[in-house]
Structures are given as C-alpha cells and as structure tokens.
C-alpha cells in the first residue's frame, strides 16, 4: 500500500532527525541513559539491601522480586520508546505548540510518537528491565517452554498496552487541566514506585486501586503469579492470571477513545 510505505518513510526521516539532534550532544545523550538507568535502579537497590537483611518479602526472595520488577521496567521501557513524545504534552498544550501538529496533514498520535522521541531515556528504562530479567529468569524456577514463552510474550504485550493507556490518559488530561503535576504525582508516580512489590502486602484499598484504577497489578503481579505461583494471591480468581492482554487491549482502546474525544473537545474549546 502506498500510504503505508509513505508513513514508514516519514517515520524514518523523523528518526534520522531525532538521532541527528541527539548526536549534537553525544556525551549528554549517553549520560542521560545512565542517569535514567540509575534513577530507576533506586527501587531495586533499596530492595537488594532490604532483602540482604530480611531474605524474603511475603515469601518472595531476591530473584523472584527482581523477576517481578523486570516485567514492570521492560513494559515501561518498550512503551516509552513510542510515547516519549507525549511526556511533555502538557507543556505543548500550554505553550500552544500543539496547534502546529494540528496544522500538518498527518495523524496526531503518529506525529507525537515520532517527534522528539527520547530513546536514550527509554534505553535506560528498558535496559534495567533486561538486566533484571537476565539476573532472575533462570533462578526463579520457571520452566521456559513454548507455553510459558507464549504466555510471557503476551503478558509483556498486554503490559505495554496498560502502561501506554495510563500514559496516554495522563497526557490527555492536560487538555482539560492547566496543572496536572501534583495530581499525577499522587495518583500515578506514587503507585508506579510501589507497583513492583507483590500487591498482597498492601492494604486492601491499595490493592483495589492497583487492579481497577491504575491497573499495574496486571502488568507484573498477576503474570508473575501465573509463572511463579507464590502464596498471597488466593483471594483472586485464577482468571486474573490470564487477563493481562485483555485488560491491556480494553484499557488502551478506552484511552485512545478518550484521546480522540479530547482532541475534538480541544478543537471546540480552544485553549
């Protein structure tokens, strides 16, 4: 198809331009990857030292905890590879630079995905996920066969969709609200920090939030439970272990619809 080729061609040009801009400041780009890697590692370092002292957390040992966290970082890393452009969406709306995208004959989300993509940050995030996976995958007693590999791939895909949906919704909120930072901090960043922990250790209210409000539980806890069968998930039906791809698709679809509606709203309300 002609349009398809053309879109890929444009994506290529966008990437070339982005790379070129980044290579103007090579050292800075590499430092950025390292900084993101270390920043995201903070939680891991904390767990490492804590479990050196305590051995297990609610029955999860160090490798199992790393495996749990690896799913979170891997999915976030893959998602952010596409969505870095949305990170400063709030700033774009407030400064009016978003209008420029409306004035170009291309899909809005497509433009936002490819403009100014910050892959170096994504490398830092995804890299940590890969490191944790390598450190733990062989030690947690998972028998890697066709079945578990397919399950794992689907779970990662679902997790990416969930992370993307949350990210897209938070970005879209900027169309309605002038200041979203403190709200985001309260509802998203706080939960993201603790999403790597087995949710059964938390208060029931927090568990419910992590399942139904910001569904991080489906990104890592339930898939890891399917593969590892640790105690603590008895109150949740087996079905939850299989829902990640479904939850991901539904959430992403909902997020995308919210985005479309919000763009219409933006065009009727101005800013």
């Amino acid at each position, binding site marked *: 198809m002609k349009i398809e080729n053309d879109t890929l061609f444009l994506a290529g040009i966008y990437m070339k*331009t982005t790379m070129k801009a980044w290579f103007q400041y090579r050292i800075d780009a590499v430092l950025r990857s390292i900084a993101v890697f270390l920043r995201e590692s903070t939680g891991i370092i904390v767990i490492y030292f804590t479990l050196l002292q305590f051995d297990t957390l609610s029955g999860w040992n160090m490798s199992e905890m790393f495996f749990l966290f690896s799913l979170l970082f891997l999915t976030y890393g893959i998602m952010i590879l596409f969505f870095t452009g949305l990170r400063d969406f709030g700033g774009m709306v407030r400064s009016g630079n978003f209008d420029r995208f409306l004035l170009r004959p291309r899909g809005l989300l497509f433009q936002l995905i490819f403009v100014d993509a910050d892959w170096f940050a994504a490398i830092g995030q995804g890299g940590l996920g890969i490191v944790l996976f390598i450190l733990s995958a062989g030690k947690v007693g998972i028998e890697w066969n066709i079945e578990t590999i397919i399950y794992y791939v689907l779970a990662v895909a679902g997790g990416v969709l969930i992370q993307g949906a949350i990210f897209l919704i938070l970005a879209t909120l900027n169309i309605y609200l002038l200041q979203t930072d403190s709200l985001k901090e309260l509802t998203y960043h706080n939960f993201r920090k603790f999403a790597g922990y087995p949710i059964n250790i938390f208060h029931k209210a927090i568990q419910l939030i992590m399942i139904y409000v910001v569904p991080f539980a489906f990104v890592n806890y339930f898939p890891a439970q399917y593969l590892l069968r640790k105690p603590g998930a008895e109150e949740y039906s087996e079905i939850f272990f299989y829902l990640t791809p479904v939850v991901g698709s539904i959430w992403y679809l909902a997020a995308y619809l919210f985005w479309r509606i919000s763009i219409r709203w933006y065009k009727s309300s101005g800013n």
Partner: protein
Amino acid sequence: MPEFIEVKEVSKVFKISKRSNGVPGMIANLIMPKYEKREAVRGVSFSIQQGEMIGFIGPNGAGKSTMIKMLSGILFPDGGEIKVGKWIPYKQRKDYVGKIGVVFGQKSQLQWDLPVMDSFELLRAIYRIPKDLYRRNLERYIEMLLMEQFVHQPVRQLSLGQRMRADIVAALLHSPEIIFFDEPTIGVDVAGKEIIRNFIKDLNQQDNVTMLFTTHDMQDIENTCKRLIILDEGEKVYDGSLMGIREKYGTTRQLDVEFNQEEVVKPIANVEILEPDETDSRKRRFVFESRNVQINDLMNELLSQYDIRDINISEPEIESIIRKIYNGEVVSE
C-alpha cells in the same frame, strides 16, 4: 470571480474556568468546574477572492487569532459557516491543512539544534512534497529571502530575523494555496522586516496566493495589504481598502498655525483650539471635523484677523485613526 474564502455569521464562545480561591475552591473546581462565557468572535462575515492579500488587525483580544485558528481548522466555530475553496476547514483536517501554510511569528517549527535544511527535509516528508517541486521552491525562496548564508547553520545560532525567514520558508515549501501569517515581523529588526515584507508582496503578485495576516505593525499593512479587516471585541468594525479607512473615519483635520507675535485667539464654533508647544505661545493648533467646518472659511477667517507667519494642514495618520477605532473614539457614519 468566485469567492475563495467565505465566512458567514461566524461566532465563537469560550468558556473560561472561573478560579475559586482556597483549597476547598480548588477541589470544587476539579470536580465541578465553573465557567464564564466570553464571546471571542461575534457574527463575523466576510469573503475573500483568490489572490487577495488581507490585513487582519485589531487590539489584543479582538478575536484575530481565534479567527485565524478557525480559518486554519484548529478550532470549530460555534455558529455560522466557513468555507475555503471546496473545503470546510474544521471537518477535513488532514486534506485541508496540506493546502494551507501558517506562520506563527512567536512559535518556531524548526528543529532548534539542527541546521535549517534538516527541518526543511523533515517537512518535505511530512507534506509529501514531490522532489522537483521541493527543490524549485527551496531555491526560489532562499534566493528571495537572502538565506544562502545561513541555511546550513543550526537554528539556535540564528538571529530572530533569520529564524523568522527560515520559518516562513518552512511554512511555504508545499506551495500552499492560502497562507496565514500571524505577526510575521514581531521582534524583527528594520532590515529584516523589509526583506519579509518585500517577499510577501512579491509572492502574492507572482503566484496569486491568497494571504491573510495579522500584525501590530501598521507599516506591515501599509506596505503590503490593499484590503483591511478590523476586528474589535469580536466584531468586524471595518472591511475595505486602506485608503477607504481615511475617507470613512479620517474626517478630522488639523491646522497648525504660527503667528508672527503672541495672539489671544478668540473661540471659533466647532473648532478645538490647542497649544501644541507650551514654550512657544505663538503656535496654535486647530482641530475640527471636515463635515462641520469648511477649511477655506476657517483659513479666511484666520488670515483676516491675525498676522500669520506659517500655516500647515494635515490629515491624520492611518495608525492614529486605527487606534481611535480601537478606543471607540470614532464611530462610522
């Protein structure tokens, strides 16, 4: 000639969220925002033919940029109709925006860290510009805007005037049929302004492109536009030629007189007498409406009564007429 742009009774109402004070107010705002209505554009109609060059002016908040946004398809109108060529701007976004070019004087679309040419290459892909058209346009614009020296420099090293020229080219590479300029000379030095104005004028004449532009700089308008649309508080208050504005509103005349000695001037009906120079009491300024006072009568009266050294009649500047229109000091007859 068929009308190219048709705007009929267009209006736009903005809801502005009312901010409440205090923490409870903020929370209430989040849950149930309160809005205040503000009519940014009220029943504006006009039509424009292909190849016309229109100056869009008005004080801040008059609705200019709202109008430009609606014409470029970024914003839906709340009432009325807009048609541009065969398109309805806000309905067929992707088709329509490929046919227009927009220059925002205050917002660059160039890649800050890269040479200007890289941004152009990116736009070529975005707008699917055929190679030969791209090359032809690029060569031509670079020559017209005297850009050879800096197209290979990173944008961050350019002066404001150079950046603006590059931004204009960026908006025109795909040969748009309509171009919107939003303050294209803001902050640019005199020489740069001259280059930009000449370019706009030449392009309009050579290509028969339709152009609309907003500006605060009356020099821009006087040098480029034949037709002027003035908006004030969301309404169209004038639509016509630059000269017409003087005929319609510029009916105030001013007569500066210098006497040979100090004089006590007697009041004259319908004429305001001012002392323009406080240190020199031999000078007087007579201000009047041309419909109330015949200039010959006034001159004869003065010459017969006083000993006059010099006399000078002046019409008001376009700029000052427009300022008066904004301030509501002159009303159309």
